C-alpha cells in the first residue's frame, strides 16, 4: 500500500506468518492504521454500505440458488416454493430482490458523491474507471437476475433488452442469437442467464478488490478536494471510520429492513406475479426503477440521422451514456476537485441530478403522456441532450472558464474553521 507500513508482528505466529504471507500486515495497513482524511462526511460512508450490500446479495443469492430451478417449466413454481415452503424463503427472496434495489440506491449515491467532490480526478482516474466497471457489471447482473423468476416482466424485459442487439449492423443478429441461445427467449436463455447471474457477482468481487486497492494508493478524496498533507489532516481508519461506517450501515439496514418486511413488493411490478407467457405482451413493459433513466435515453431518439436508424441511435445513446462516465477524468478540465468551491459547476450538477430523475420519470411513463402540454418523449429528448451536454460541453467549458472560490489551506484548517475553533489550535487526537 502507498503509505509506510507500521505493522509490528507481536507474537511468534504473526512474525512467522509475516515472513511468509504478510496478509495480516495487509489488513492492518488497509483497515486499521490507514490514514483517512478526518473531514469525510456521511456521503463517504456508502462505500462501506456497498461492501455490505454486495456480501448480502451473494449470501442470499447462494442460498436461493439451492432452491431455484432454472427451467421454463419449473422456474416460476420454484420461486413460489421458496416463498411458501422454504424456511424463511420469503426473507431470502424479498431480501435479495429489494437488496438489489438498495444496492443500486447506494451505488447511485456513491457515484453522485464522486461526481460532486471530483473524486475521479487525478490521481484517482483508475479508481473511478474500476468503479464504473463495477457499476456496468452490476447493471448486467441485475438484469440477468430479474429474468430468473420467469414472470411476465422477466420474460418481456429479456425480450426487449436483447432486441436492442438486433439494431447493431452486421453482427447484431448473431450477438442476439448467442445471448438467447436461439431465436427467442426460451429455456436456453434462462439457463445461460442463470449461469451468468451466478458468475458475475464474483467478477464484481474481483473488481471491488482492485477498486479498494486503487483507493488505498492515493487514499480517499475528501469534501475539500485538497490532498492530505500530514498527520494533522488524517485519522486512522480504525476506530474512527470503522465506527462511523458501522453507524451508517446500521441506518441503511434499517431503511432496507422497512422495505423488506413491510413493503416488499413496492419496488416490483405486479405483472411479475404472472407466469411468463410468450403469447401475451403486457400493456406496459417497464424496467426496474434503477434502469429507468437509461431506458428513457434509449427511447428518446425517434428519428433517423442519415443512414443511421433511430433504433440503432437509441442503443448507441444508451450505451454511450454509460461509456461517457469512463472518460470523466479527462472531460473535467478544472484544477479544483470539489464543487464546494465551484459555484457555477455546482449549479449545473444540481440540474444534472434533477435531469436524471426526470429521465427516470420519462422511462417509467409511456412516450405520449403529456405534462404541461409537453409530450414525455420530447421531455426525454431534451433531458437526454442535457445528460450528454453536461459531460461533453458543460464539464470541459465550465472547468476552463470558472473562477473557483478560494480553497482552504489544508484539511485540518478547514476542519477547525468549520468547528468554529481558531486555526491556531494545534493538531490533536491522532498523534
Amino acid at each position, binding site marked *: 500500500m502507498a503509505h509506510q507500513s507500521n505493522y509490528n508482528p507481536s507474537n511468534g505466529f504473526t512474525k512467522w506468518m509475516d515472513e511468509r504471507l504478510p496478509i495480516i500486515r495487509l489488513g492492518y495497513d488497509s483497515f486499521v492504521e490507514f490514514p483517512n482524511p*478526518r*473531514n469525510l*462526511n456521511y456521503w463517504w460512508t456508502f462505500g462501506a454500505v456497498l461492501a455490505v450490500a454486495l456480501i448480502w446479495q451473494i449470501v442470499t443469492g447462494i442460498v436461493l440458488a439451492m432452491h431455484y430451478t432454472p427451467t421454463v417449466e419449473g422456474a416460476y*413454481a420454484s420461486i*413460489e416454493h421458496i*416463498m*411458501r415452503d422454504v424456511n424463511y424463503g*420469503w*426473507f431470502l427472496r*424479498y431480501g435479495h430482490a429489494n437488496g438489489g434495489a438498495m444496492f443500486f440506491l447506494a451505488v447511485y*449515491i456513491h457515484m453522485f458523491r464522486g461526481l460532486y467532490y471530483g473524486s475521479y480526478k487525478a490521481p484517482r482516474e483508475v479508481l473511478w474507471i474500476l468503479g464504473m466497471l463495477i457499476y456496468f457489471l452490476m447493471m448486467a447482473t441485475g438484469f440477468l437476475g430479474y429474468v430468473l423468476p420467469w414472470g411476465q416482466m422477466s420474460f418481456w424485459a429479456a425480450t426487449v433488452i436483447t432486441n436492442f442487439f438486433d439494431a447493431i449492423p452486421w453482427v447484431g443478429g448473431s450477438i442476439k442469437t448467442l445471448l438467447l441461445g436461439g431465436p427467442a427467449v426460451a429455456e436456453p436463455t434462462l439457463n445461460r442467464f442463470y449461469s451468468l447471474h451466478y458468475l458475475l457477482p464474483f467478477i464484481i468481487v474481483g473488481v471491488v478488490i482492485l477498486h479498494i486497492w486503487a483507493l488505498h494508493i492515493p487514499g480517499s478524496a475528501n469534501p475539500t478536494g485538497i490532498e492530505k498533507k500530514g498527520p494533522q489532516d488524517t*485519522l486512522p481508519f480504525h*476506530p*474512527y471510520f470503522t*465506527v*462511523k461506517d*458501522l*453507524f451508517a450501515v*446500521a*441506518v441503511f*439496514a*434499517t431503511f432496507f*429492513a*422497512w422495505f*423488506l*418486511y*413491510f413493503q*416488499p*413488493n*413496492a*419496488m416490483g*411490478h*405486479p*405483472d411479475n*406475479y*404472472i407466469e411468463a407467457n410468450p403469447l401475451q405482451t403486457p*400493456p*406496459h413493459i*417497464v424496467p426496474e*426503477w434503477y434502469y*429507468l433513466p437509461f431506458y428513457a435515453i434509449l427511447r428518446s431518439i425517434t428519428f433517423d440521422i442519415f443512414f443511421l436508424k433511430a433504433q440503432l441511435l437509441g442503443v448507441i445513446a444508451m450505451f454511450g451514456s454509460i461509456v461517457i462516465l469512463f472518460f470523466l477524468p479527462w472531460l473535467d478540465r478544472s484544477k479544483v476537485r470539489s464543487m*464546494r468551491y465551484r459555484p457555477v459547476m455546482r449549479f449545473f450538477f*444540481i440540474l444534472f*441530478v*434533477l435531469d436524471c*430523475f426526470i429521465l*427516470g*420519470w420519462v422511462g*417509467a*411513463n409511456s412516450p405520449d403522456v403529456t405534462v404541461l402540454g409537453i409530450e414525455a418523449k420530447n421531455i426525454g429528448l431534451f433531458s437526454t441532450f442535457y445528460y450528454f451536454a453536461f459531460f461533453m460541453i458543460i464539464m470541459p467549458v465550465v472547468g476552463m472558464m470558472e473562477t473557483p472560490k478560494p480553497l482552504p489551506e489544508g484539511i*485540518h484548517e478547514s*476542519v*477547525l474553521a*468549520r*468547528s468554529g*475553533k481558531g486555526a491556531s*489550535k494545534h493538531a*490533536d*487526537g*491522532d498523534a
Partner: protein
Amino acid sequence: MKMKKAKILTALGLVGSLALGTGSALASGGEVHLKHEHWSFDGYTGSYDQAALRRGLQVYRDVCSACHSLDYVAFRNLSDEGGPSFPEKMMKAIAAEYEMPGIDDEGEPIMRPGASPDYFPSPYANTTQAEAMNGGAMPPDLSLMAKARRDGPNYIFSLLTGYEEEVPHDVEVLEDLNYNPYFPGGQIAMAQPLYGDDVEYADGTEATIEQEARDVAHFLMWAAEPRLEERKTGGRKALLFLIILSGLMFLCYRMVWSDVDH
C-alpha cells in the same frame, strides 16, 4: 455549510420519493379509483382474520373454483399457522372431498380421495380445455391474484362488486363481455360471479355480496402471501433491533470522535 448540506439532503429525498411515486402511479394506469376497504392484514401489526379466511375459502370453493384454479395452495396449507388454521382433522376432511388421480397397488390408474399434501385441483384437464370452455381465454389462476394486480385485495373487492354499477351511456358493451369499470378497459369476459347469498356461511354471517367479495379477497391475499404474519412479526422485531443498534452505533461514533476535531 450545514444549511447547504441539509438542502442537498432534502432535495435528494424529495426527488427520491418522486421517483418511487412515479412507479406506482404509472402502474395504476389512470383507471378508475378502486374502492378502499379496511383490511386486517394492513399496517405494521396486520394479521389475517381467521374467520374471514375460512369464509373466503368457502366462497372460493363454492363459486370461484368452478372456473379458476388455485395451483400453489395445498390442502395442508389450510392448517398452517397464520392461515385459516383449520384443525388437522377438518383440513383432511376438506381434502377428502376432492378426487385426485392416483394409482392402486397394481399400478392401475384410479381416482382416490384427496390428502393433505395434494394441491387444490384445477377445474380443467389442460389449458386447451380451459380455453375451449371459456370462449378462448383461460380464466387466470388465483393463487397470486392479490399480488399480480396493483393494490390487489382492493382490486379484487372492487371488481367483484363492480358489476352492479350502471353502464354509462357512451359505453357500448360488446357481445359476450360484461361492463365492469374496475377491469382494465372496462369490459370483462367473466360473468358476474357473486350476487349475494351464493354461499351459506358456516359461521352464520350474512352472505351479502360485499361480505362475500371482502372474504374472498381476504382469502386470496392469504393464498398469495401465506407468510405475511411471520414476515410482519419478524419485521417489528428486526426494525426495533436495528433502530436500537443504530442508536448505539451513533453513541459509539460520538464517543470515539469526541476527542478529535472533525
